[in-house]
């Protein structure tokens, strides 16, 4: 119920921030209406980095505590992170086309870094898909998420060195956001959008986490059923000839032990 209230609040906040960004703030003097893309764009980029930070930390949590709940947070955060990374790149391209004249600006270190970020975490998600055992998958994902998180700053610095400094990030220099030279409505629109998007992110994370737990419980149930079926078949050689009856015995209901383990 609380999650639902949070979801409604997030939805309303995003709508309000979008309306304010579209109508409450005047268009930028140089960039015109294109500048309005910056509000969701910066917010998406912030959430992309937040997500992958959470994924890396949850990975460490799994490696230390061996609790699959950490892994559920990791996958939830990674998937949402990929979504916001894609949104950030898409918004950036939509903005770059009218302002810089091209969709893809190789000289922009943040665009290049973000594209690699997307590739890294798509690989992370694919890796998870290809591992069946929950503990093994969690370990692989944790170490890969960790190494990816270590790599990101190096990527960022190397690309900055690669092509000299372009326009310095608005996002990592708070003085620029808080700078009074930026008119108050602009600052409000940006901060409002950041807050609204973060609310939406939190709601998505909780929901995806619950889903990950449910998926895991189902996986364990199926596995438990299989294990029982196999052992039953071994105990009664006659049953192996007619596996239909043994499957019928289980009736798809998970054995209590597997269920207890899954919901731990």
């Amino acid at each position, binding site marked *: 119920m609380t999650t639902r209230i949070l979801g409604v609040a997030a939805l309303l906040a995003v709508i309000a921030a979008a309306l304010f960004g579209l109508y409450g703030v005047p268009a930028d003097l140089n960039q015109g209406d294109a500048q309005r893309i910056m509000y969701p764009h910066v917010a998406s980029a912030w959430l992309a980095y937040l997500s992958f930070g959470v994924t890396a930390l949850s990975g460490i949590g799994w490696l230390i505590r061996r609790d699959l709940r950490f892994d559920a947070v990791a996958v939830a955060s990674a998937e949402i992170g990929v979504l916001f990374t894609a949104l950030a790149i898409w918004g950036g391209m939509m903005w770059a086309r009218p302002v810089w004249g091209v969709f893809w600006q190789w000289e922009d270190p943040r665009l290049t870094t973000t594209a*690699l970020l997307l590739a890294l975490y798509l690989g992370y998600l694919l890796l998870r898909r290809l591992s069946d055992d929950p503990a093994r998958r969690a370990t692989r994902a944790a170490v890969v998420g960790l*190494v990816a998180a270590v790599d990101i700053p190096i990527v960022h*610095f190397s690309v900055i060195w690669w092509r000299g400094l372009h326009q310095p990030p608005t996002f990592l220099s708070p003085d620029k956001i808080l700078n009074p030279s930026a008119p108050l409505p602009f600052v409000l629109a940006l901060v409002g959008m950041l807050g609204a998007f973060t609310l939406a992110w939190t709601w998505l994370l909780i929901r995806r986490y619950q889903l990950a737990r449910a998926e895991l419980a189902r996986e364990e149930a199926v596995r438990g059923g299989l294990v029982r079926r196999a052992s039953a078949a071994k105990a009664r050689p006659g049953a192996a000839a007619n596996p239909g009856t043994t499957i019928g015995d289980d009736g798809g209901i998970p054995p209590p032990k597997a269920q207890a383990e899954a919901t731990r």
Partner: protein
Amino acid sequence: MTALRRNATIAWAIARKDAVAEVRGKQAAVSTLTFAAVVLLLFGFALGPDPRRLADAAPGLLWLGLVFAGLLAVGRFHELETEDGALEQLTLYPVDRRSIYAGKAAVGAVAMLVLGALLVPLVAILYAVDVVRALPVLSLTVLLGAIGFAAVGTFYAGVTVRMRAREVMLPLLVLPIVAPLLLAAVKATSAALTGDPFGELPAWLELLAGFDVVMLIAGAGTYGFLLEE
């Protein structure tokens, strides 16, 4: 100190074992080297016969060839272990997992150096680049690049070795990670070849060395978890 020595001995034993297996096996090593040479040849076709353009692109092509062939090499050193349950045996040895990683990374780096020793002259011939003058700096660049690539590649080979579709997953995971290495190595190589007119060579070599150190630490710290599976 004795613990460090012991680990170094173990790492050396593992590296030596893999190198011997590779040299005696021959086919795999020869086919990897041939693959790298063919890649360089095809880059020439892709870019056309203009010698100026080929010479400009030479540093990038050299490193792409090294990375592609290197992926095959680091993958192989783990595939060797999947036969006859060798990997299980290896994990059962009561040794520090970091020394296993170090051994695998060392033999991977040596393989990259061998590839480099083949590809640098080939680039000089095919793309008409004068490498003799730049050879000392170029060697250092290849050495640093080889270590960094082996550090990353060995770690990911450990991740994917027991996975389905590992032939696709290894490149998919390694390529985005080595992007900064590729970038720095290409920049350093082209600075070395042009006589470093902007004095940027030290910075790129530093970045390469920094990448090596960070990735070796990250790999050594996490590789053990993969063997516990």
